[in-house]
């Protein structure tokens, strides 16, 4: 195998991190004017021809894509992961910290009603289960977390959940606006861009 030179390596890397297919002119902005771009693209394209990833040109723009015959392995399902709503997140947190707990108790802690759908979502996700009834008038259903909950959140037991003092010390017990101010004042993050 012929080792790629630095120009070709730069072309390869630039195409890899590009957010969109790139024209030759756009590529030039990254890799400079020094090398022979046409030859580099042709050589790379040849190199990747038999591999799991191919370098292809569509309408003058170049990009990497997976080989067509592997689509069945890699095809992505339509339903994307969704973020839990704030209500669901809070309900889940209350159940985790206070379990077993009835819906009325969750409402008492949150200070607002819990919609029927919220508990359904948590049960469908497999993180919450009914855990019997409380032996008080009305015999309300009580809820607890599941072991899927523990494994999803990387906890070995509920005792691993940080206590209130730990939350306070970590800065997680501040009201939202205060927490943001605190961040700004300490300038711990100059840039909020999430990294992979």
């Amino acid at each position, binding site marked *: 195998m012929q080792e790629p030179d630095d120009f070709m390596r730069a072309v390869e*890397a630039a195409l*890899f*991190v*590009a*957010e969109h297919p790139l024209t030759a002119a756009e590529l030039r902005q990254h890799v400079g004017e020094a090398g022979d771009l046409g030859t580099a693209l042709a050589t790379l394209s040849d190199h990747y021809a038999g591999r799991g990833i191919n370098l292809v040109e569509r309408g003058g723009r170049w990009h990497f894509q*997976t080989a067509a015959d592997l689509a069945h*392995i*890699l*095809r*992505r*399902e339509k*339903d994307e*992961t*969704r*973020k*839990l709503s*704030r209500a*669901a*997140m*809070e309900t*889940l*947190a*209350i159940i*985790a*910290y206070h379990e077993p707990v009835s819906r009325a108790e969750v409402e008492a*802690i*949150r*200070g607002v009603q819990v919609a029927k759908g919220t508990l359904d*979502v948590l049960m*469908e*996700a497999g993180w919450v289960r009914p855990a019997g009834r409380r032996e008080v008038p009305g015999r309300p259903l009580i809820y607890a977390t599941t072991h899927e909950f523990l494994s*999803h*959140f*990387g*906890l070995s037991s509920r005792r691993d*959940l*940080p206590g*209130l003092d730990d*939350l*306070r010390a*970590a800065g*997680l*017990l*501040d*009201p*939202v606006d*205060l*927490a943001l101010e605190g961040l700004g004042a300490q300038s711990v993050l100059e840039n909020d*861009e999430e*990294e*992979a």
Partner: protein
Amino acid sequence: MEDLFTPPPQPRADMLTVSFESWEGPLDLLLALARSQKVDLREISILALVEQYLAYVEGARKLKLELAADYLVMAAWLAYLKSSLLLPKQAQPDPSPDELALRLQLRLQRLHAMREAGARLMARDRIGRDVFVRPRPEGLRLVRKAKWAASLYDLLQSYGQLRARTQPAVHMVAARPVMTLDEAIQRVGTLVGSAIDWTTLESFLPDGQDGPMARSALASSFVAALELARQGRLEIQQDGIYEPIYLRAALPDQNGADQGGRRLL
């Protein structure tokens, strides 16, 4: 070992304008001073270090810099350590000053090691800075994909915010620097005894105050002067509106009554 950590400004005896806010506590300052000895931390002279720290803090106090309590606590402890180190061996208390010094040295070594380790970590080839991953990967068809995304951080954060929101708020009123009327009466009453001649009210104020404390001291001292005048212990004179106010001790024979007589009234 290459020092990757950008050293903070090295303090020198003639560089006391350095703000204490640039140090993260006494240990941080001690480490910077130790590094200024330019020897391996295992060979630093603890005695020299202690003297540097004490000189530094003393200089700051001369300049009337506001010093956090922990710097003063450390200064007191180091002063104790220094005097113990200078004692003859047989008179040494327990734990021995040598052990205390060694302990301090070990702490400085550990902090220094972690500081350098942090700097070396930051200098590695980091994703998003030196190496890059695909910005928008298509994603894999997952065999069993959790439908809901939620991280432990999200969970803890929402519980923390919930508790912060639902717990009764406690409002703390910060104590403002004031001079109370009692303090002012005490102070003016004591000082005026030595003022035979007319002396401005301002010269009865404590030195080195500014801002709200200065205004409070002025107001309280003025009211104190009125009260002391009422008691007959001093006299007040002012030539006109906005003119300076002068005080002096009341003469015993004035108004035909001395202080003791007044007190009876």
